[in-house]
């Protein structure tokens, strides 16, 4: 039922409510968009309108020169995308298997390495793709891998990834989460900003682009953690592994690497 007088200007409640709300908004906006920015050099350097725009959150660059998006990426050129994680077609797997004959010398006939080269069997496809692209673009150093990767086409890389993802993973019986696991694997070290291994590398969660490391050769894991720590390997796009490894001690690197490497010899399905 329309109530007579509710919206009438002569209704004191209506008049005062509307006027007070408008005054409150204008005052708040005046302070938030004009007065406060005026005391900040960053905001007010380019005049009133620019300062209002900045306070409103209009995107702008803080530095002169080309926008950051146009500068060459530092860590990697690969942008991880969920589409990279999809299973390959059987054609792709077949082609990948043929191409993979080039890889067997180090990575094993079935993708399980007998030396200190990483296992590729069952590796997530986006991991293989990213690393091959990174070798190609010299974002990750390895004279051997650079030579092998530089002639691979986009499609070759996708096919290799599909083939290795198709093979079974090196793994052991399911892990029980108890005190027998190294602390860094289970809970990380919160005060050093080290996240637990299992929150990205499988166990609790598996993040896109994080490799499957169960059963990896111990020497390989130690070498990679040391390279991340020293900053000689720097193709982790968000600096996540360099940040983790930076404050790890030698003993911790040994412990974590042994843990992940030991799982394979503990009697897994190879």
């Amino acid at each position: 039922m329309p109530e007579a007088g509710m919206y009438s200007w002569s209704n004191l409640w209506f008049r005062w409510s509307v006027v007070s709300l408008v005054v409150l908004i204008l005052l708040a906006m005046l302070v938030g968009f004009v007065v406060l920015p005026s005391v900040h050099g960053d905001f007010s350097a380019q005049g009133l309108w620019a300062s209002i725009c900045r306070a409103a959150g209009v995107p702008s660059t803080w530095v002169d020169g080309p926008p950051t998006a146009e500068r060459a990426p530092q860590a990697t050129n690969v942008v991880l995308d969920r589409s990279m994680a999809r299973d390959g077609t059987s054609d792709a797997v077949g082609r990948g298997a043929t191409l993979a004959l080039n890889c067997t010398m180090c990575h094993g006939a079935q993708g399980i390495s007998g030396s200190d080269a990483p296992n590729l069997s069952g590796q997530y496809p986006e991991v293989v793709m990213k690393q091959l692209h990174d070798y190609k673009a010299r974002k990750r150093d390895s004279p051997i891998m650079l030579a092998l990767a530089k002639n691979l086409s986009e499609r070759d890389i996708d096919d290799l990834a599909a083939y290795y993802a198709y093979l079974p993973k090196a793994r052991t019986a399911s892990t029980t989460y108890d005190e027998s696991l190294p602390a860094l694997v289970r809970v990380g070290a919160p005060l050093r900003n080290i996240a637990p291994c299992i929150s990205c590398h499988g166990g609790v969660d598996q993040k896109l682009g994080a490799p499957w490391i169960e059963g990896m050769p111990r020497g390989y894991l130690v070498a990679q953690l040391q390279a991340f720590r020293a900053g000689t390997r720097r193709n982790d796009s968000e600096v996540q592994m360099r940040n983790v490894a930076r404050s790890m001690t030698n003993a911790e690197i040994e412990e974590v690497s042994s843990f992940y490497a030991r799982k394979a010899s503990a009697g897994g399905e190879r």
Partner: protein
Amino acid sequence: MFQAKRLVLAHFWVAFIAFLGALVLGAWQMYVRSPLSTWVNNPEHYYRSVTAHGTVMAYVLPTLIAMGFGYAITELALKRPLLGVKWAWGGFWLVIAGTAIAAVTMGMGKASVLYTFYPPMIASPFYYLGVVLVVVGSWVWVALMAINLRAWKKENPGASVPLAMFGNVAGAYLWAWTSVGAAVEVLVLILPASLGLTDTINAALARVLFSWTLHAIVYFWLMPTYIVFYTIVPRAIGGRLYSDTMGRVAFVLFLVFSMPIGIHHLFADPQVGAGFKFVHAAMTAMVSVPTLLTVFTIVASVEIAAKLRGGKGLFGWVKALPWDNPMMLAVTFSFIMLGFGGAGGIINMSYQLNETIHNTQWVTGHFHLIFAGAIVLMYFMLAYELWPQLTGCAPLSTGLIRVQVWLWFVGMMVLTMPWHLVGLLGAPRRMAYYDYTHPDLHSQAWTVTASAIGGFVLLASGILLVYILATARRRDGATVEPFTFSRAAHPGGHTPVALNGFGLWVAMMVGLTLVNYGYPIAQLASLAEAYVPVIPIGSR
């Protein structure tokens, strides 16, 4: 009560049983984090528990209580049968179905995203479908409240709407507009990503849309409590409501100001402009006005009760209050927790002070104190008040209720004060594991033990609540006293036309939302850089 007894009872029972389950999870969470127990060693189990605890406590419990209480008020205050009882049952079953779907998904570990919808973390689509069903069920309630009020107004042209119903419908409209933000976020951004239709999501826009719902939802939780303050407390302790008009002013101020202030949750988010952050902080300060009005009015009403009982003097009347009355105890505890929580809230909403406590355990302490403490305590009281009407039982044991209320108050203070302290010391919230063996943290270990003890006291209180409600026995032959709401100190006063309807206030609420959210939403929606890869939880 005419028709809605079973309906209201169903809402309350499901709410309190889910509540008890979530309470067990909450106590467990504090226990495993404390030095009293060895750590579970799997953070995912902890986050799964947090997700379930939060989903039940934030969405299921308050929604069912507001709905059930709303239906009860419609019949008790308007003194006519509820229109649309079948629709109300439909809404109830939607809430149940949604809760069940979300619960199964959470239990399977496919939704450990901590009950807040912050992409790019994305849960299984079934979790979001479950939450959407809960919200859609509550929208049925919103529509029914509006329809019932309209029908009553048609029958009683020009009469002033009873205060309880006025607050109830204000809460319904508030919720309808509040839920739009998260509904848009889930339907437009999250579900397509969760279903795998898109690989990227506009995380910045999603966070802003969630903030639309995230803050105002607390005033939806709060409405039933404020209705109890105004329309039940003065009667229950033998006093009069100091001012009916003040109650209406408080309700409409909540309607206008609770909505467009959520960006104070995003003070640390770079995608929102500093100007809008300030405006939202200023508007958040305005929400303290209806709360201060309420505290004043209820204290004045309590003073009337004391004076009627022969209390004298400036403060001497406090001694004359009926302290053996559970409602007196509950409203006192509720105000104490509201006071601490409100003071903490003013720190949270201050643009600069927020920096010191942003995303720390302080925030967890704050919302437990003010919601689980001040607000939920009054949910218990409204259940105790309504129980004889709903079940025909004899008056409940005031002794047991007093114990329950005391336990809840003490447990909540013991739980939340250490959280505030460690928050100030910098302990982050939402961490599954704190290494208290580390020398830097060792001195804080006692705070978790204290909070765990608080958690168990709260669990005992929750069990007692369900025990009291479950053992209430029907009285044969005897009639239950008709339910009454508080009488105003000056009954029959004129209700201004503006405070007898919602048109003006709803218009102001929508208008203010457009002013405060319009630009940030439009700007972020058109920003290509705001799209980031989706991170599905538990998909591998």
